[in-house]
C-alpha cells in the first residue's frame, strides 16, 4: 500500500514541478496577491472626496476648516455656503460625503461652550461612511481641545467645549444586500464569461482543432469576435437572472430600469471577455488560464473598491483598479440601482468598459499567433 501511495505522490510531484510556466503561476500568484494587498492597504485611508459647507462666518470655524484641510483622509473638492448645496453634491455622488459647519457655530461655542456640526454620508459606499465618521470625530475631538485651550487662555478660566457631530445619511436605510448584491452580480457577470473565453482558445489549441482552423481562410477577427458574441449573451443572461434573484427573491433595492442594468452588464461582460480572450491567447494550457482567472477573481474582490474602499489604498497602487472591469461596473451599478439615476449619468464608467473591451480585443488579435509553433 505504502509503495503505491508513494508512487502516486512521486508522480504528482514530478508533474507539478515539470511545467515551469505553471509552477511559476502556482507560486507567483498567491505571492503577488499578498504583495499588492500589502502595498495597497498597509497605509491609512487617504483622499476621500468631500464637500465642505461653511455657513458660519465666525472666527472659530476657521480652526475647524484648517484642521479639515490638514486631514490626509479628507480631500475637500468643493467648498459651498449651505447645507443644502452640500447635500445636493452628496446626492449627485460628486463627493462621498460632506461636512457642514452650521450658522451660529462660533457664537454657540463662545457663549455656551456647545456646538454642533453635520456630517453628510452617502450610505451607498460600503465601508466608507464608518471611516469618514471616525476621521470626523478625530478632527472634532482635536479641535474641541484646541478651542477649549485658547478660550481658557483668553478668559483666564477653564472653559469646556463640546462639539456634537450629527450624521445625516443619504441612502441611509440601505442593507448590505442592497449595496453588495448588485456587485456580487457583477462578479458573476465578470467571472463566468471571462473563464469561458479564457478556456476557449487554449482548448482549441490543446484539442488540435486550432491547427485545422488556422489552415482555413478564417481570420483572427472571425475567431475572436465569433467567440465573444455567444459568451457575451451568456454574460447578459447571468446579469439579468442575478438581478432578478437579488431583487425579487432577496429583496435588494433596484431603482434602475432593467434595460440600464442590462446595458451595464453587457459592458462588463464584454470587458471581461476581452480580458479572458487575452488570457486564452497567451496561455499554453487550460490549467494556466484557470490560474489567471482565479487570480482575477481574488484581485477583483480586493481591489475594485466594493469591499474595501479605494480610498484605503495607497495612491501609488491605485492604478490597479483601472485594469479591473468590476471597478467600472461598481461605479455605474451603484448609481443605477441605488441612486436610481439613468444610464446617461453614469456613462463615463460604462464607456470606459466598452473602451476597455476594445483595447483588449485588439490586443488579443494582435498577440494571437496564426501559427502553432
Amino acid at each position, binding site marked *: 500500500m505504502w509503495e503505491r501511495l508513494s508512487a502516486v505522490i512521486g508522480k504528482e510531484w514530478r508533474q507539478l514541478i515539470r511545467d515551469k510556466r505553471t509552477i511559476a503561476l502556482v507560486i507567483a500568484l498567491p505571492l503577488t496577491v499578498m504583495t499588492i494587498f500589502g502595498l495597497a492597504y498597509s497605509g491609512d485611508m487617504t483622499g476621500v472626496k468631500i464637500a465642505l459647507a461653511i455657513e458660519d462666518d465666525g472666527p472659530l470655524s476657521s480652526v475647524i476648516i484648517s484642521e479639515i484641510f490638514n486631514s490626509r483622509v479628507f480631500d475637500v473638492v468643493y467648498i459651498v455656503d449651505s447645507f443644502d448645496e452640500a447635500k445636493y453634491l452628496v446626492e449627485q455622488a460628486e463627493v462621498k460625503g460632506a461636512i457642514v459647519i452650521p450658522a451660529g457655530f462660533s457664537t454657540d461655542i463662545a457663549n455656551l461652550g456647545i456646538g454642533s456640526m453635520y456630517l453628510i454620508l452617502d450610505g451607498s459606499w460600503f465601508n466608507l461612511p464608518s471611516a469618514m465618521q471616525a476621521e470626523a470625530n478625530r478632527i472634532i475631538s482635536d479641535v474641541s481641545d484646541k478651542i477649549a485651550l485658547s478660550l481658557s487662555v483668553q478668559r483666564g478660566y477653564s472653559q469646556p467645549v463640546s462639539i456634537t457631530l450629527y450624521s445625516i445619511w443619504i441612502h441611509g436605510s440601505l442593507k448590505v444586500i442592497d449595496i453588495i448584491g448588485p456587485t456580487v452580480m457583477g462578479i458573476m457577470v465578470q467571472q463566468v464569461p471571462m473563464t469561458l473565453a479564457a478556456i476557449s482558445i487554449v482548448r482549441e489549441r490543446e*484539442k*488540435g*482543432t486550432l*491547427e*485545422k*482552423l*488556422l*489552415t*482555413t*481562410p*478564417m481570420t483572427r477577427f*472571425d475567431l475572436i469576435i465569433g467567440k465573444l458574441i455567444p459568451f457575451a449573451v451568456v454574460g447578459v443572461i447571468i446579469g439579468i437572472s442575478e438581478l432578478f434573484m437579488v431583487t425579487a427573491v432577496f429583496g435588494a433595492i433596484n431603482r434602475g430600469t432593467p434595460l440600464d442594468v442590462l446595458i451595464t452588464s453587457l459592458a462588463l461582460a464584454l470587458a471581461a471577455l476581452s480580458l479572458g480572450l487575452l488570457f486564452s491567447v497567451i496561455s499554453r494550457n487550460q490549467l494556466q488560464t484557470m490560474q489567471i482567472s482565479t487570480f482575477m477573481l481574488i484581485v477583483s474582490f480586493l481591489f475594485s473598491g466594493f469591499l474595501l474602499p479605494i480610498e484605503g489604498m495607497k495612491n501609488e497602487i491605485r492604478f490597479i483598479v483601472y485594469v479591473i472591469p468590476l471597478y467600472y461596473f461598481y461605479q455605474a451599478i451603484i448609481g443605477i440601482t441605488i441612486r436610481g439615476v439613468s444610464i446617461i449619468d453614469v456613462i463615463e464608467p460604462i464607456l470606459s468598459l466598452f473602451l476597455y473591451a476594445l483595447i483588449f480585443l485588439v490586443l488579443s488579435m494582435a498577440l494571437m499567433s*496564426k*501559427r*502553432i*509553433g
Partner: protein
Amino acid sequence: MSYMVELINLVKKFGNIVAVNGLNLEINKGEIFALLGPNGAGKTTTVRMIMGLLKPTRGKIFVDGIDISKNLSEAKKRIGYVPQFFSLYEDLTVLENLYFFGKIYDLPKNVINERIRELLEAVNLREHKDKLAGNLSGGLKRRLSFAVALLHDPKLLILDEPTAGIDPPLRRAFWKMFKALRNEGKTILVTTHYMDETEHADRIGLISRGQLVAIGTPTEIKRKVFDGDLIRIVFRGGKILTELNAPWLVRLLRRENTANGEQEVVLIVKELASVLPKIPIVLKKLGFEPILIEPVSVTLEDAFIALTSGGEINVGEIIRGYW
C-alpha cells in the same frame, strides 16, 4: 509554374534542433506523392510549413505557383489539409462539422449542401451524419476529416499520416480513394512511415533527418539501393561460376554451392524485365542447366532501411531469406 508544390532549400530549426535541413522538392500536378520517412524525419514539420502553420527558418515554398510567404490565404484556398490527429469538433455532429467548415470556406449555401451530399456518399458516412464526431470510431473520424478537407474542392490534398493506426482493409480503401481523387485531377501529398503502402504512390520522396534521401517511382527507389534489380538463379552442371560477362549485368552479388552439386547466384541487373528471358540462353551457352530463375523482390522496406541507415547497405540482411 508547372509544379503543384515546390520547396526550395527549406530549413526549419527549433532551437538547436534542425528538423528540416535544406529540403528541395517538386510535386507535380495530378500525382500522388508520398513523403516517406521514419518518425522524427521532418515530415510533419514540412507539411506544417506548407500549410503556413510554421514559419520556415529559411527557404521558399510555392503552392500552385503562389509564394506562400506572400499570399498564404490564396494558397490556403487551394489546399485541403488533414492533420495527423483528429482536429474537428468532437461535440458537434458530422453534419454540423461539415456545415461549419463549409461556411468558413465562404461556400454558398447551395454549394455546401451539394458538396456535403456528395462527400457523405463518397466517404460512406451518410448513416452517421447525425452522430457526434467524438462518438465515431477512429476510421470514421478519418473519413470525416477527408470529407471536411475536400469540401472546398481543393486542387491539392495534404494528408499527414492518414493511415497511421488504421487496419489494413481501411488503409487499402483510403489508397483507392486517393487514386480516385488523383484521377479527378487532384494532387495528393501523403506522409507516411508505412513503406508497403507507398507502392501505391506515383512517386515517393524518402526523407531522413530532414533531408531528401531519394526520390522517384517505387521501382526507381528500390533500384537505387543496388543500382539495379536482383535476380536469383539456381543451376546445375559445369564448372564453378565465378565470372559472368554480359552488357546487362551490373554485378554478381553472391555465389554459393548448395546441396546436390547445385549452385546459386544472385545477380544485379540493369532492368529486370528485359534481362529475364536472356538468362536461360546465356546459362545454356556456358553449359549450365538452369533449375530456377526468379526475381528477388526488394521490398520498399528494405530500400527504406538501406537508404535511411546512413548509406550502409546490408545485402545479407536483405536477401537473407533466399540463402
